[in-house]
């Protein structure tokens, strides 16, 4: 026995109450020093020894003998005198004397293991005693911890600060001066609760909650990798908005987003919800290997799901068993297998949404389509019922027949088509030769691996060939002439068109449009004999369509053939062709109907093209086998180790009857007995309101994460959350109703020094507002905010050239929006993930290429530059100035209004003095330099009120900008 150990044993307390708590005291030491070699990872395990399981305790093994440190090999080894025998090996890590003491004492007290706290079932804890200060149960838990440390909670904050705090916390917006005044003067006992209820019922509340969820869901308006092209996932984001507005229970919120597509007969809404996991970054990189990318997307989904719901980081187990938490590599791939069933491809488009997706016609679009279908059908009905006057057809037939024999008209062959030939972009599809462009067309042979297919299209109408985006379709036909001649053709196409005659390009138009008659004109120089016409239609999205008609006197081949034949003895079929032709192109009523139908079809194609889509989840029909991937490499599956989808059974088995699909996974996550989901979720709400979670590592509730500062409170909140039916608004309301939440954030120095991180919650936190809230506040107080909910992302002001600096071969340029869109709430800012909007990014909005459940909150010089110089903030300052000048008459009243808007209280005497001094000096500057004043007032695209004196308006703009830059304005107190 070493002398160290002897000394330690002397200092250990004699038999008495247990002082060492495994989870709090021992587990972190074991995890830090021992588990890499003696933990759950069998790949790195040494000497076949596991110290993470209680089965190691016992006299027979002799490793951990309860009560007998001296007989325990474990203690012997960690205190061994010989460096060679001492554990852990010195080059790996070194135990401190304090740690050795703890371990020794633990063995002495019985070497009891406990399951890691967060893996234990959530039980409703006993409520600690109440006190005068406590307003609800939360406070009783907080008070108990404070009392243990002999610290007094802070008094309730003043009402003005409280309403501003609550408004930002729940709605991301400042209160209006009227709201402040009303609340401050409302002396009814229910005033605060009424306020809470009112705020929770606003759209702004839904927007604020959605913003946080967008970070977790790594939401963006672009695909991230390589070209980082656009995508439309905002219908999913709008679904989240509606879910929060309607206070959808969190369990339903979870199930619909993780597995809405797998619910029985899913509604459109549920399909849209399933887009949660389509926010994954995807790639369109040319040389990429499809399976490698596909695996990458699945890895992202495992990570996001485990971070957001389980509060465990499973990432390590992609390559090897987790070294600390009970997640084996097999567990990982069983979890992975839930997602590995997706039908999506690895290589995805850089040009919009990738499959699987659904169309989302608006009500207006649905009505338009129905109306157009009606008119198309009415034309069909007309032709069924109506007929030209008797004898008219026969008369025309015999006249035409006679005329035709005297003419020499090109004879048009039947159309054949081949395709679609798909490429990554429309431009590629357009420029590439997919087979027939450089050879003589032979409709009997294959082209680019596909067959030519005969078509029955009649010329002079828009025909739709398909709807594959970024793809080309070829059309070809013969044209026979008895003598060489010019013939004009009239064309239409959706989208680009290129035409070859006998192998030579004679026309092209690289364009984007819905097809209609007569969009282009071209001329054909037809030689004697047979010519071959080749036409290429390239579609960027929506339907692939074309229109073709040769000059008026040129008739389609079947019609010509029928006309050429002698009228007597004409077959029924040929007569039918002619009659049909007559009715549609000669008979005036028929022509009118045909043009009605053509117009309707063209408009229908246009409407269909304008219908938005959203990406959704969809599983393959026959489930895809998942294998453990060696070291996580996509190309190294252990084919001998197939795995079935499965949950982390160590935490909780799959509920009875749950299917082995994402739906089962979602049901498992929100099973009332799940130990993690409710804890992790309420902790996230707590962190949102207090700037710090009860578990400070909000994404990691595993053994390496922080332990809860108030374990009983966390469990009480989690238990209540589940019991209440996963009621989100109730959970939030409960927290903000507490006395703990309502404390003052001011604290004397001794209090701050005693608890700098405010772990014990003896005061309210004070932290900088999110960048979104700062911009929205500036827009709101200046009266320029356009408060509209949902819709596509908006491209607000940003410095030039930012996209260009990163874009692939200059292919994507930023085009700023104008008008209303410049003044929408910041959560709607178009989020390009390779170059995120810089003002927001400067204020710690995550890139959103990976899941983030708690933002950083930094304080940098770059942030000062944004709020002082960004045109958005300067423009807001001049509108705020204008508002102050127009609303109030004298300096003090104006200043007080400015402060009320931004800080919820009038200017302090000091502020008034400082501002007045600045005002005087600044007014003199602008009066002497009118150009400078006008220049400042010209910042931003909105107009100013020209009736205001420019120097005064500019001076107030300077003051407004100062108010917008005060620490108090930037901070939630």
């Amino acid at each position, binding site marked *: 026995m070493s002398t160290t150990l002897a000394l330690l044993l002397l200092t250990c307390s004699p038999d008495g109450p247990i002082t060492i708590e495994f989870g709090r005291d021992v587990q972190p030491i074991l995890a830090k020093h021992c588990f890499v070699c003696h933990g759950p990872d069998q790949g790195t395990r040494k000497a076949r020894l596991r110290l993470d399981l209680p089965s190691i305790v016992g006299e027979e093994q002799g490793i951990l003998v309860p009560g007998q440190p001296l007989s325990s090999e474990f203690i012997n080894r960690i205190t061994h005198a010989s460096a060679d025998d001492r554990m852990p090996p010195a080059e790996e890590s070194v135990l401190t004397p304090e740690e050795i003491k703890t371990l020794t004492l633990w063995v002495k007290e019985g070497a009891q293991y406990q399951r890691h706290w967060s893996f234990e079932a959530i039980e409703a804890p006993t409520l600690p005693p109440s006190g005068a200060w406590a307003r609800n149960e939360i406070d009783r838990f907080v008070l108990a911890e404070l009392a243990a440390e002999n610290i007094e909670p802070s008094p309730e904050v003043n009402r003005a600060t409280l309403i501003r705090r609550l408004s930002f916390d729940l709605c991301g917006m400042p209160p209006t001066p009227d709201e402040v005044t009303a609340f401050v003067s409302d002396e009814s006992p229910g005033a605060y609760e009424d306020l809470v209820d009112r705020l929770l019922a606003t759209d702004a509340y839904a927007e604020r909650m959605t913003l946080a969820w967008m970070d977790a869901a790594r939401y963006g308006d672009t695909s991230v990798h390589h070209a980082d092209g656009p995508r439309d996932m905002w219908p999913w984001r709008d679904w989240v908005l509606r879910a929060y507005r309607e206070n959808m229970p969190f369990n339903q919120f979870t199930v619909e987003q993780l597995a809405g597509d797998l619910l029985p007969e899913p509604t459109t809404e549920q399909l849209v919800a399933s887009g949660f996991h389509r926010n994954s970054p995807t790639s369109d990189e040319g040389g990429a290997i499809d399976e490698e990318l596909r695996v990458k997307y699945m890895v992202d989904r495992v990570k996001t799901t485990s971070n957001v719901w389980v509060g465990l980081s499973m990432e390590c187990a992609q390559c090897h068993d987790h070294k600390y938490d009970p997640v084996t590599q097999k567990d990982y791939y069983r979890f992975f297998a839930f997602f590995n069933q997706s039908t999506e491809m690895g290589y995805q488009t850089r040009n919009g949404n990738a499959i699987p997706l659904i169309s989302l016609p608006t009500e207006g679009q649905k009505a338009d389509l129905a109306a157009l279908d009606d008119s198309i059908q009415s034309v069909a009905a007309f032709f069924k019922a109506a007929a030209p006057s008797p004898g008219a057809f026969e008369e025309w037939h015999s006249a035409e027949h006679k005329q035709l024999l005297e003419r020499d008209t090109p004879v048009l062959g039947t159309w054949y088509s081949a395709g679609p030939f798909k490429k990554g972009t429309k431009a590629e599809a357009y420029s590439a030769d997919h087979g027939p462009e450089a050879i003589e067309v032979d409709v009997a042979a294959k082209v680019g691996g596909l067959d030519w297919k005969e078509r029955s299209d009649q010329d002079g109408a828009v025909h739709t060939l398909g709807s594959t985006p970024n793809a080309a379709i070829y059309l070809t036909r013969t044209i026979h002439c008895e003598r060489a001649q010019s013939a004009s053709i009239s064309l239409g196409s959706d989208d680009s068109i290129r035409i070859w005659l006998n192998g030579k390009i004679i026309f092209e138009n690289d364009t984007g449009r819905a097809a209609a008659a007569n969009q282009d004109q071209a001329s054909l120089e037809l030689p004697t004999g047979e010519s071959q016409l080749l036409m290429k239609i390239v579609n960027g999205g929506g339907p692939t369509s074309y229109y073709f008609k040769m000059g008026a006197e040129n008739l389609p081949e079947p019609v010509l053939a029928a006309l050429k034949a002698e009228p007597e003895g004409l077959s029924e079929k040929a007569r039918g062709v002619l009659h049909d032709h007559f009715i549609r192109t000669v008979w005036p009523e028929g022509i009118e109907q045909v043009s009605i139908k053509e117009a309707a079809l063209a408009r229908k194609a246009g409407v269909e093209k304008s219908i938005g889509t959203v990406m959704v989840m969809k599983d393959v029909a026959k489930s895809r086998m998942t294998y453990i991937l060696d070291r996580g490499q996509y190309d190294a599956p252990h084919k001998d180790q197939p795995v079935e989808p499965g949950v982390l059974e160590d935490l909780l088995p799959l509920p009875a009857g749950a299917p082995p699909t994402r739906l089962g996974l979602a049901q498992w996550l929100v099973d009332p007995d799940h130990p993690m989901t409710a804890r992790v979720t309420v902790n996230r709400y707590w962190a949102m309101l207090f700037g710090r979670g009860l578990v400070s590592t909000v994404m990691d509730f595993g053994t390496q994460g922080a332990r809860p500062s108030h374990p009983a409170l966390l469990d009480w909140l989690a238990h209540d959350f589940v019991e209440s039916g996963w009621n989100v608004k109730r959970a939030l309301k409960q927290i903000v109703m507490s006395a703990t939440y309502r404390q003052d954030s001011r604290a004397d120095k001794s209090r701050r020094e005693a608890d700098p991180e405010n772990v014990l919650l003896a005061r309210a936190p004070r932290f900088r507002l999110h960048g979104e809230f700062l911009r929205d506040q500036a827009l709101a107080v200046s009266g320029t905010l356009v408060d509209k909910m949902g819709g596509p992302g908006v491209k607000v002001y940003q410095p030039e050239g930012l996209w260009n600096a990163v874009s692939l071969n200059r292919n994507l340029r930023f085009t700023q929006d104008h008008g209303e869109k410049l003044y929408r709430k910041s959560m709607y800012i178009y989020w390009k993930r390779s170059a995120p909007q810089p003002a927001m990014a400067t204020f710690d909005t995550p*890139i959103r290429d990976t899941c983030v459940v708690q933002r950083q909150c930094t304080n940098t010089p770059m942030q000062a530059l944004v709020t002082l110089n960004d045109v958005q903030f300067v423009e807001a300052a001049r509108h705020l100035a204008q508002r102050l000048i127009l609303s109030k008459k004298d300096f003090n009243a104006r200043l007080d209004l400015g402060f009320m808007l931004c800080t919820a209280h009038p200017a302090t005497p000091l502020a008034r003095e400082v501002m007045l001094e600045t005002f005087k000096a600044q007014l003199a500057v602008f009066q002497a330099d009118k150009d400078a004043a006008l220049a400042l007032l010209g910042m931003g695209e909105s107009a100013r009120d020209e009736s205001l004196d420019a120097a005064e308006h500019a001076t107030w703009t300077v003051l407004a900008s100062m108010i917008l830059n005060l620490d108090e304005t930037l901070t939630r107190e």
Partner: protein
Amino acid sequence: MDPIQERSRQVTRRTLLRNGANGLGAMALGSMLGKTAFGGVRDKGLPHFTPKAKRVIYLFMNGAPSQMDLFDYHPKMREIHGIELPDSIRQGQRLTTMSSGQKSFPCVAPMFKFKKYGQHQTWVSELLPHTAGIVDKISLIKSMNTEAINHDPAITYINTGSQQQGKPSMGAWLSYGLGSMNRDLPSYVVMISRGKGNFQALYSRLWGSGFLPSEHQGVKFRSGKDPVLYLSNPDGIDPATRRRMLDGIAKINEAKYEETHDAEIQARISQYEMAFRMQTSVPDLMDLSTEPDSTFELYGEDARTPGTYAANCVIARRMAERDVRFVQLFHRGWDQHGNLPRDLRGQCKDTDQASAALVIDLERRGLLEDTLVIWGGEFGRTIYSQGALTETNHGRDHHPRCFTTWMAGAGIRPGYEHGETDDFSYNIVRDPVHINDLNATILHQLGIDHDRFTYPYQGLDQRLTGVEKPRVVTELLA
């Protein structure tokens, strides 16, 4: 408590003003270095040992320069020109899907002349005459390798140590670990330029801070009116007005501090001051009009054009003089899948002289001894032609198994060649250097043991150099 933070808690702005700019600098520094809002390690015990390098200039050649057309030349390549790539060389190597469908893989000898330079008779292409002139000052690593075969994962990998997005970049790690050495400029600056070649996308995450506090992310400097985003005052606001505004804001903020004792307020006051100083320090840095003609003779006339690689190299030197910790130049356009003979020549013309000039200039100014210069891309290119091989034209696809990088200064062995590839510049035959080995070596020169330089995140000690154990390439050290 951290002494800097302690100080920032006690010192009010008035005393700072009395103390002059140094006091402000210390405080701004304090909050740029010390404050980590949500966890993170305060005492990092860095550097672990005496560093050779105080600062780094990383010349990142985005798109992957062709190693065998520039440095990794084997005379035998002339003999294999036109033959099919032997299976014995390819060894089942996975190819990108851009060339995996090719029926033929004809080897292509460089279509450029090579000569031997310097005391070790190092092959250098005619495309790099200026770099050829500094071979005795640099270490050339011919045996660089990575696993990624496509740009996005590869460039993310070499910059962050992981192919998955979300990890901090090297510059952010250094800013976090070593902090800033100057009081007027950020500690990690990025500048981007581009050639005429095929250019790949870049992503701001490449200079992002990942899970590290975001004040450590790279600040992108640009040419033009606002070298740093939002740097200029709004129209109509002159410096005197701005000064007046900041003084007023500070007075009101100080009163707030007295009321709340929240140290964040004092940090904010100093950050506003730093922002104010940057409004002069950054334009001053970027203004090359004060450079003598000799500078432009050295770096080339291109350096007079803002936004060019050459101009960025001059600015990089000026930043080294001002003690910016980590300067990263991204030069785009090295992705020669086709038209390599034409486009590679253009890329080299845009970069060769300035890269060499930077090394020479730093040396003349005595800065090379503690400035580490690195030149290289994210992977190499294939010996076989992508697309048709004609007498004058061909392309090369991505190749992760070997590529060439060079380093100079700050204790790096001058005039040294490390590693060797086979005659096809396809496989490494001697002394491989993985990109994580390179990064470990860079950290080593900065006095950092890569293994001990960690940040706890999601239950793991995260490292720039990943979970595998990389090796400091001691052979490269002087």
